[in-house]
């Protein structure tokens, strides 16, 4: 009789208090039945087994009955055997010593006459997952692979991969991969072939990291003989296996165009398959094969459109969602090819909101001259949608289309109509959009201002909308009759204003208004600065102080700083880098497309943080935060309003930065009640407020914006004599580690440097600079942007050391300037690396 080892984890579910007694009861019954030869013994056993399994399913620990279960397993009843296998499979891992008891009967069943039993036994044997039992596995697996029954071979071929996961060496020593490969290339049964393929891919991919032989084996799998052999048999495979074969084919590198067309002709009919997964897999093959042939690639898009649109309409919402995500990816890659299909992306009232969201994004992307009117009309319908987030999204979509198009006239009208809808969130979203529109198309100010002027600020609750309104009040105060008075009433309610963002905007707006309409605003300005200086929020306080000093110093200079002639914003900040997009495209037909990020960002352990899910659920926040470490290249998902880099915002940043560097030495001004009197004198005097040690503006009477930007550099003295730095010629850093480092390391240096004019002129695409920097041993890890703004992430490594330098470099080719942010493992050498980097950068275009 087997001893029933008391389980340490004997924790019956609290909801099933009777669990323990029930288990002992079951044990008792099993023991009685074990040796029974009564004709109905199997029926009784079935009943008891069923109860055991049902307890197991309910979460009751039934491992105590292990010994009895094994005793009763000596039966020829298939159903009993299956239940027993299931039981053993679940509990063997927790009780390796007891699992040994089962080996005997499983091995015997592996030699049964009935192939079903052989297969089942072999599958259970491989599923035990007990490391010290692997020795018993090899023999049944090897015979299983040669079994006359396809069913057993099918099980054995997957079993080999299972063995690999339990014990790598055992699997390799038994030479199972070679057997699998032989079987894959010769077996008459398609499912066996498919399972061999799964197992081989899995084994060799994992093995490739530490063995070159394995890497070569992988290459053979992707080689022409194997791929063509499998493709020629494609119709024999089950729909699922077809997905895998197609996945393999998508990675095949054809040697000439004939091969490409052969494959495409062969797979053409797969696009009509009822299984969406097969269709998507086929599409992947087509897209990847034709990457190098632009015109054919385009034809492929045309060809796959109809099947994709059908798939969207068919099946459950979840299935359509997965197809839509892929369609979304394709639409984003080639919007113009879908511009005539815009009606397919109209939202149905009953669509779930995750589907609506994707559709809105696609509608935005495919809007062009010919369909804008219809699309915008449709989007306007959604603005009154009951689903508020979708209504917001659609208003933003209208705005985005407006920012993309040249003919914004009609759209501006629509936006202004939104303001008349008199719904809080609609107004707020619209104001933000009108603001952004005005920053890009100042010529529309007249139309917009007329409407915006009629909006009462009291009706807007949302900070973003309020801030946008205040910005417009400040910016266009000369055109809006009562701007100063509206601002004044807002200042009166300063204390009730919760959002620091709104208060900051209010400060700036009042300043701007003051320079445009001084007599009307003077009173408000005094009150604003006083309120700002008393504000508890650091930024608000600092900016108020800054404005105050600026005015004190010279109102003329202040005007130039606060109210320079505005330059229309022409460029969006970079969205997702093209490299990341390409990576997602490479991983077509997988989760990457749904998450819209490459797989390394969500499967690699380091990206998820250190936490292991199964161990502690309370740590979850760490995992949730993990995406935050993702580099800014991914920020595209954020609110698009933040993507507009406006000159005014830049100034704001700069002013804040320069102010910040000096505040520490200042005391708060003792008298704040009379800034207007101070200003009215119009004679700047160096009062005691200005610390002589601080940056003296008077010395730089004609400072330009660029000088101002230079003030942002922390004035820490450079290391006295930076040691000569040589870089490793071939540093290796994977994107994952880069991101991790970037998130962990503090900023060592932030500088601006200039490019040679030739360099700036020759920077037509990111690649040219990347190549140039590579020749200086500085590698690029990600790049993106549109002319004239580019963004790069570079890295270098000190020769003979492990320390890396990471650089974020934003190049503006129009001004031939580059802004650098350097982070270093070894902060002391950051300065010398920066020198090296800048000299490399300045040489760009000169050679």
């Amino acid at each position, binding site marked *: 009789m087997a001893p029933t080892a008391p389980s340490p984890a004997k924790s019956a579910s609290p909801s099933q208090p009777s669990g323990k007694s029930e288990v002992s009861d079951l044990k008792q019954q099993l023991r009685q039945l074990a040796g029974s030869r009564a004709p109905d013994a199997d029926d009784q056993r079935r009943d008891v087994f069923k109860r055991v399994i049902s307890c197991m399913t309910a979460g009751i620990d039934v491992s105590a009955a292990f010994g009895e279960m094994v005793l009763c397993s000596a039966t020829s009843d298939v159903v009993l055997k299956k239940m027993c296998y299931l039981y053993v499979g679940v509990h063997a891992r927790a009780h390796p010593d007891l699992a040994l008891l089962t080996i005997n009967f499983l091995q015997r069943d592996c030699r049964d006459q009935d192939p079903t039993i052989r297969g089942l036994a072999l599958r259970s044997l491989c599923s035990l997952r007990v490391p010290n039992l692997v020795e018993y596995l090899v023999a049944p697996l090897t015979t299983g692979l040669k079994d006359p029954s396809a069913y057993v071979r099918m099980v054995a071929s997957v079993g080999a991969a299972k063995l690999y996961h339990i014990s790598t060496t055992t699997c390799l020593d038994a030479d199972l991969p070679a057997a699998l490969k032989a079987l894959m290339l010769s077996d008459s049964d398609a499912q066996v072939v*498919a399972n061999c393929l799964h197992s081989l891919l899995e084994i060799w991919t994992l093995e490739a990291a530490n063995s070159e032989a394995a890497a070569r084996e992988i290459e053979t799998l992707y080689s022409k003989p194997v791929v063509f052999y499998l493709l020629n048999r494609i119709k024999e495979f*089950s729909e699922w296996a077809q997905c895998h074969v197609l996945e393999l084919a998508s990675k095949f590198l054809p040697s000439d165009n004939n091969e490409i067309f052969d494959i495409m002709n062969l797979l053409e009919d797969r696009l009509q398959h009822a299984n969406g997964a097969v269709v998507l897999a086929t599409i992947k093959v087509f897209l990847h094969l034709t990457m190098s042939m632009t015109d054919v690639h385009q034809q492929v898009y045309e060809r796959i459109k109809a099947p994709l649109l*059908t798939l969207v309409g068919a099946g459950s919402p979840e299935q359509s*969602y997965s197809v839509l995500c892929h369609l979304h990816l394709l639409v984003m890659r080639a919007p113009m090819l879908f511009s005539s299909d815009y009606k397919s992306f109209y939202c149905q009232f009953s669509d779930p909101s995750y589907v609506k969201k994707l559709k809105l994004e696609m509608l935005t992307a495919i809007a062009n001259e010919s369909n804008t009117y219809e699309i915008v009309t449709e989007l306007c319908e959604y603005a009154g949608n009951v689903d508020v987030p979708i209504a917001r999204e659609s208003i933003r979509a209208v705005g985005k289309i407006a920012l993309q198009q040249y003919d914004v006239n009609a759209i501006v009208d629509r936006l202004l109509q939104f303001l008349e809808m008199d719904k809080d969130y609609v107004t707020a979203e619209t104001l933000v959009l009108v603001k952004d529109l005005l920053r890009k198309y100042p010529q529309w100010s007249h139309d917009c201002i007329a409407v915006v002027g009629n909006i009462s600020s009291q009706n807007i609750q949302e900070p973003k909308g309020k801030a946008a309104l205040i910005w417009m009040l400040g910016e266009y105060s000369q055109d809006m009759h009562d701007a100063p008075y509206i601002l004044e009433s807002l200042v009166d309610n300063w204390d009730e204003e919760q959002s620091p963002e709104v208060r900051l905007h209010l400060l700036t707006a009042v300043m701007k208004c003051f320079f445009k309409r001084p007599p009307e605003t003077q009173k408000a300005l005094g009150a604003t600065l006083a309120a700002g200086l008393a504000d508890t929020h650091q930024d608000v306080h600092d900016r108020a102080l800054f404005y105050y000093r600026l005015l004190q110093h010279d109102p003329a200079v202040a005007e130039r700083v606060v109210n320079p002639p505005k330059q229309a914003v022409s460029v969006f900040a970079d969205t997702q880098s093209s490299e990341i997009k390409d990576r997602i495209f490479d991983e077509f037909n997988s989760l990457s497309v749904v998450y819209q990020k490459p797989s390394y960002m969500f499967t690699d352990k380091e990206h998820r943080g250190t936490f292991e899910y199964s161990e502690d659920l309370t740590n979850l926040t760490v*995992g949730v935060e993990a995406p935050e470490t993702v580099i800014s290249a991914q920020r595209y998902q954020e609110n698009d309003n933040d993507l507009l880099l406006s000159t005014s915002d830049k100034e704001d940043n700069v002013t804040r930065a320069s102010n910040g560097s000096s505040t520490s030495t200042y005391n708060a001004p003792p008298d704040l009640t009379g800034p207007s009197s101070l200003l009215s004198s119009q004679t700047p005097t160096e009062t005691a407020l200005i610390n002589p040690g601080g940056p003296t503006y008077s010395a730089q009477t004609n400072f330009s914006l660029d000088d101002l930007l230079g003030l942002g550099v922390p004035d820490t003295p450079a290391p006295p004599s930076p040691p000569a730095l040589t870089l490793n010629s071939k540093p290796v850093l994977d994107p994952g580690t880069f991101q991790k480092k970037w998130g962990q390391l503090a900023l060592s240096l932030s500088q601006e440097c200039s490019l040679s004019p030739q360099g700036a002129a020759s920077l037509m695409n990111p690649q040219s600079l990347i190549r140039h920097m590579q020749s200086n041993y500085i590698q690029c890890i990600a790049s993106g942007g549109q002319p004239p703004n580019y963004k790069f992430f570079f890295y270098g490594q000190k020769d003979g050391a492990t320390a890396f330098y990471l650089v974020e470099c934003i190049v503006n080719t129009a001004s031939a300037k580059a802004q650098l942010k350097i982070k270093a493992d070894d902060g002391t050498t950051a300065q010398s690396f920066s020198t090296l980097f800048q000299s490399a950068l300045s040489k760009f275009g000169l050679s």
Partner: protein
Amino acid sequence: MPVAASAIYFLNLRGDVLINRLYRDDVGGNMVDAFRMHIMQTKELGTCPVRQIGGCSFLYMRISNVYIVIVVSSNANVSCAFKFVVEAVALFKSYFGGTFDEDAIRNNFVLIYELLDEIMDFGYPQNLSPEILKLYITQEGVRSPFSSKPSDKPVPNATLQVTGAVGWRREGLVYKKNEVFLDIVESVNLLMSSKGNVLRCDVTGKILMKCFLSGMPDLKLGLNDKIGLEKEAQLKSRPAKSGKTIELDDVTFHQCVNLTRFNSEKTVSFVPPDGEFELMKYRITEGVNLPFRVLPTIKELGRTRMEINVKVKSVFGAKMFALGVVVKVPVPKQTAKTSFQTTSGKAKYNASIDSLVWKIRKFPGQTEATMSAEVELISTMGEKKLANRPPIQMEFQVPMFTASGLRVRFLKVWEKSGYNTVEWVRYITRAGSYEIRC
């Protein structure tokens, strides 16, 4: 490695595990707790069917009162996983006599365990065809009381079948009466603007078949679709017959259809599975015959009264009729009192969906019906008028009518024994998402 699933869970609406199966070790056993905590118990439920928590992705679907959750830790193939769930549910349904819910799972857990073992191995989908699985997984199990002598013949046969080339049909079927039932089921989707313009309109159709045929018959189906007719005319070198031809935007076929032959000859030929199956699916966007026109007029009389007038016209043949016509007209939440007048059918106010529901059991072709309703609203302070009403939605089914105009021209059955078959063809058009903005 695009694995489809590392684990699969079946949960009830409270989040209790009904049954689960771990296929791989790469996801922890308590992942389901994470799902419960971070998806089921939050507002996130239903926002997106694919979610990542920690390092694992959850792909979930609700089928009646059961959540089916697939957990993966690798970069899995999403469409494959969802399709797998759908097919698995279809398989369970065919085993449980058409129902799949919490009770069905609780009553059949042993069987589900067996099936879960067969349909997926180590995360890779295997065979999901009910036709084949039923041969060797039966609710009763294969009984061989004292020994496993080859007394149980179907078993070795079945395992051969599992992977055979014609995976969808068993040999040696015999029927006394050879019959084929063919149903063309179309659902027509419409989105009409408040001005009466058709914004979007399409038909998704499927051809369902039920075959009770002996032996290994070869079937050939002819439709009045444009490409097929042209090709036929070309092959027989005679001009294409005049009359309505249908342009199918896209077609997908059951795996039994010989796609190579479809591509070369444009005929649908196949060896059908036994019993019920979906032969093909298609989509049409051009030349759709809308069965109903809806003409709503909604007047707001002051702040507390509304007048709603909806006229519905049937524009299909006068000899045909629609069944189960339901028109749902949304009304504001603060509706207090309603009164109706209808020329046919019955109307009432359903507060739970904030709509007037007008039902007409039988609606003959080429006729029209109107409903006039007066709605009184509770006057509320500060409530602004509804800027956008949800659309009017319509449900109906019209037998013997296809919105696409698709017709079966012929269905030929050929079997080497040369028996006669009886063919039954039916058509029906249903409302898909039939929305009229107002």
